[in-house]
């Protein structure tokens, strides 16, 4: 500010200050002048010089401080006119330099609050010396506004009266925005969980931090009875407590993927329910907590159990009388109870055939009910489809010859290997061939296999009657019979095709049919090829789930060789098979790596088997004079080495 711009009072006080300094200087000079003898004056001058240096240093520090502060620093007079502003203040204002701010009144930069508030604050600052935590809206050059948090400090002159103000301001606009965004997001979470139909809870250190109304309702409590007062272990059915404790321990220690499991819970009124839990580890208020979704699946479980029981009971109740009737009729037809006339015999045979048909229907119903419930335990093994198809075809040769129909099997050269349940796939071929034979009087039936990279396609073609276009869509439905069965042939149960569709789909495949009336039909199904690695993973994952549930160990062994010859590796499978005899153990080969999954076995048993297998493999190599640097063995045990199949595989591979 130029001197002519300064107010009179200001100039006076500056002059006074200057005069005070001159007086001081004069004193010093006179001290120097009248010092006289050597030694007497120099200390004073030295002190003066030192004082000057100190002053310069502190001025320098002050300047550096003001300019490097990330906050805006503005010095104003008692009316708020800016005398000095740092770079940040200029930047905050949107000005190009600090000079732009000089002369402006700070109260004008603070809007739209009435000036009175600003003046009030200045006055307060002058009285108390410093005022902190003030919040203002700061208007920039372009008219946009920021929210700042400011402090005002009164600077005193040598007369101890306030002569200027120091204002330090911090831009808190962003922080404010984040805050409100956070609040909004928390609000949304709250609305979502409060109104969720699924029970949601957050728990840490054995207590609920939060439960939503649905969760409280599942257990028949009020939210406030649960929050901070009870925890998940208080609600679990005592017998299932160990399972939940295991899950909680694993969640707390391990990686944060979700745990999905089923336990029984106890409601406030003592009622027992089936409690399905999906829980995850999260960071919550500086600590780890579990967030879980819960469902009461009691009804679903009961319905499943009832259906299971029903199907089994019904099939038993239907079969028992059927056995009696059949035995009775057999006794008669075989003449054991006396001679039977031809007509009587004929009628009895009709009766017996229909009993057999009924028995098949019951079997099929049971089958389809299990397949649809996803409860067929597919026992997958390496199967050569070509061999399977040929074996099936062979079983039909006599009937085909009788009818005069030719059967051919077309396969690509070599084996067509895939991991499937061989009994079930046999069932599929048998069923398709049966149908083909039933509806073909002349010509041929052909089985074709095609091996593509990710899957195998099988086709059963016939030159039979074909299927009505209107029937094609429903052909795989239950109890659908084709509209033109050959007169006199045995009627099917109507379930065969729906069963094989179920089987194919349970393997992850697809089945379809093409047909031309009068020309013939072609049933095709595709089965995806799972690598032995994938099958092993599936087996391992299933085994781990069981082990978790039962609270037992599971071990994974790996024996790795440096042999390449496929022929030998295949034969080694047989060597391994001879040692892996327990029902609960299974082995898988992936290239030159042999994996053995041992359910219910711990490290000691695993080590024993590992040694035996390694020896057997070495003996094999010796016998066939194979060049090998030996067998590398690795082992991983659940739960010590991990709970996820990937963890165990990695640990086993780390040999």
């Amino acid at each position: 500010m130029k001197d002519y711009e300064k107010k009179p009072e200001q100039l006076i006080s500056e002059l006074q200050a200057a005069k005070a300094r001159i007086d001081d200087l004069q004193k010093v000079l006179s001290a120097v002048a009248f010092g006289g003898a050597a030694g007497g004056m120099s200390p004073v001058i030295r002190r003066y010089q030192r004082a000057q240096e100190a002053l310069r240093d502190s001025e320098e520090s002050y300047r550096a401080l003001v300019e490097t502060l990330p906050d805006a620093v503005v010095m104003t007079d008692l009316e708020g006119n800016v005398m000095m502003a740092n770079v940040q203040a200029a930047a905050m204002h949107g000005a190009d330099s600090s000079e732009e701010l000089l002369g402006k009144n700070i109260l004008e930069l603070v809007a739209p609050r009435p000036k009175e508030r600003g003046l009030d604050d200045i006055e307060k600052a002058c009285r108390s010396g410093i005022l902190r935590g003030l919040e203002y809206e700061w208007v920039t050059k372009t008219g946009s506004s920021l929210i700042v948090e400011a402090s005002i400090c009164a600077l005193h002159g040598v007369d101890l009266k306030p002569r200027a103000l120091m204002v330090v301001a911090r831009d808190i606009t962003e922080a404010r925005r984040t805050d409100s965004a956070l609040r909004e997001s928390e609000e949304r979470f709250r609305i979502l969980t409060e109104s969720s139909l699924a029970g949601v809870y957050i728990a840490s250190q054995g207590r609920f931090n939060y439960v939503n109304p649905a969760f409280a309702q599942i257990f028949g409590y009020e939210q406030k009875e649960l929050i901070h007062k009870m925890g998940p272990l208080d609600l679990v059915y005592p017998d299932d407590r160990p399972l939940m404790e295991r899950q909680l321990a694993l969640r707390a220690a391990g990686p944060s993927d979700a745990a999905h499991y089923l336990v029984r819970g106890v409601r406030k009124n003592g009622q027992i329910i089936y409690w399905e839990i999906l829980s995850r580890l999260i960071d919550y208020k500086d600590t780890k907590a579990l967030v879980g979704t819960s469902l009461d699946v009691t009804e679903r479980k009961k319905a499943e159990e009832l259906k299971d029981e029903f199907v089994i009971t019904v099939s038993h109740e239907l079969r028992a009388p059927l056995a009696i009737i059949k035995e009775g009729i057999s006794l008669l037809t075989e003449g054991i109870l006396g001679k039977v006339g031809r007509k009587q015999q004929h009628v009895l045979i009709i009766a017996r055939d229909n009993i057999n048909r009924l028995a098949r229907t019951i079997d099929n119903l049971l089958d389809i009910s299990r397949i649809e419930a996803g409860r067929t335990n597919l026992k997958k093994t390496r199967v050569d489809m070509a061999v399977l198809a040929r074996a099936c075809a062979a079983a039909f040769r006599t009937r085909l010859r009788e009818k005069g129909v030719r059967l051919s099997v077309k396969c690509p050269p070599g084996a067509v290997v895939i991991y499937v349940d061989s009994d079930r796939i046999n069932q599929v071929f048998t069923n398709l061939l049966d149908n083909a034979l039933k509806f073909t009087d002349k010509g041929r039936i052909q089985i074709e296999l095609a091996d593509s990279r990710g899957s195998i396609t099988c086709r059963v073609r016939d030159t039979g009657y074909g299927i009505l276009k209107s029937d094609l869509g429903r052909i795989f439905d239950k109890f659908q019979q084709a509209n033109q069965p050959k007169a006199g042939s045995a009627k099917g149960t109507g379930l065969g095709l729906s069963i094989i569709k179920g089987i194919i789909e349970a393997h992850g495949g697809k089945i379809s049919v093409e047909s031309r009336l009068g020309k013939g039909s072609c049933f095709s199904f595709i089965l995806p090829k799972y690598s032995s690695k994938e099958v092993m993973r599936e087996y391992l994952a299933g085994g781990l789930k069981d082990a978790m549930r039962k609270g037992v160990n599971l071990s994974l062994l790996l024996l790795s060789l440096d042999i390449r010859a496929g022929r030998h590796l295949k034969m080694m499978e047989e060597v391994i098979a001879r040692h892996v005899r327990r029902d609960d153990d299974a082995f898988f080969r992936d290239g030159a790596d042999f994996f053995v999954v041992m359910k219910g076995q711990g490290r000691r048993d695993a080590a024993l088997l590992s040694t035996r297998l390694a020896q057997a493999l070495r003996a094999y190599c010796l016998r066939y004079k194979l060049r090998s640097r030996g067998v590398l063995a690795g082992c991983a045990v659940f739960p010590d080495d991990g709970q996820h199949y990937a963890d165990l595989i990695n640990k086993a591979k780390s040999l």
Partner: protein
Amino acid sequence: MTKKKILLVDDETQLVELIKMRLTREDYDVLTAYDGEEALQKARHGNPDLIILDIMLPKMDGYMICSLLKRDRRFYKIPVILFTARSQEEDIKLGKKVGADAYITKPYEAQVLLDKISELLGKG
């Protein structure tokens, strides 16, 4: 030559009647029992050469009976055919576990049953 004695156990009296007719025709001596207790009693005191045992029995099921007999030094040699309408894999596995010599599901082919009987008796 003494006739072979078969103990036939099933709670369906009509079925027992019909099978007995057939077995008698095949020149076997037939003992019958209709519940678990009776079955055990007759197995232990009746000296059967073979037992046809239904599973769903009142008082004690067939698995239990088979298990008890097979663990008894006096009777474990007697062949046991488990006979039932239950055909689930688990049932068959359980049958093997308790030591049954054969497992036939109802309804059955009469000839299959007869063949199995002569096979198991041939061994003894």
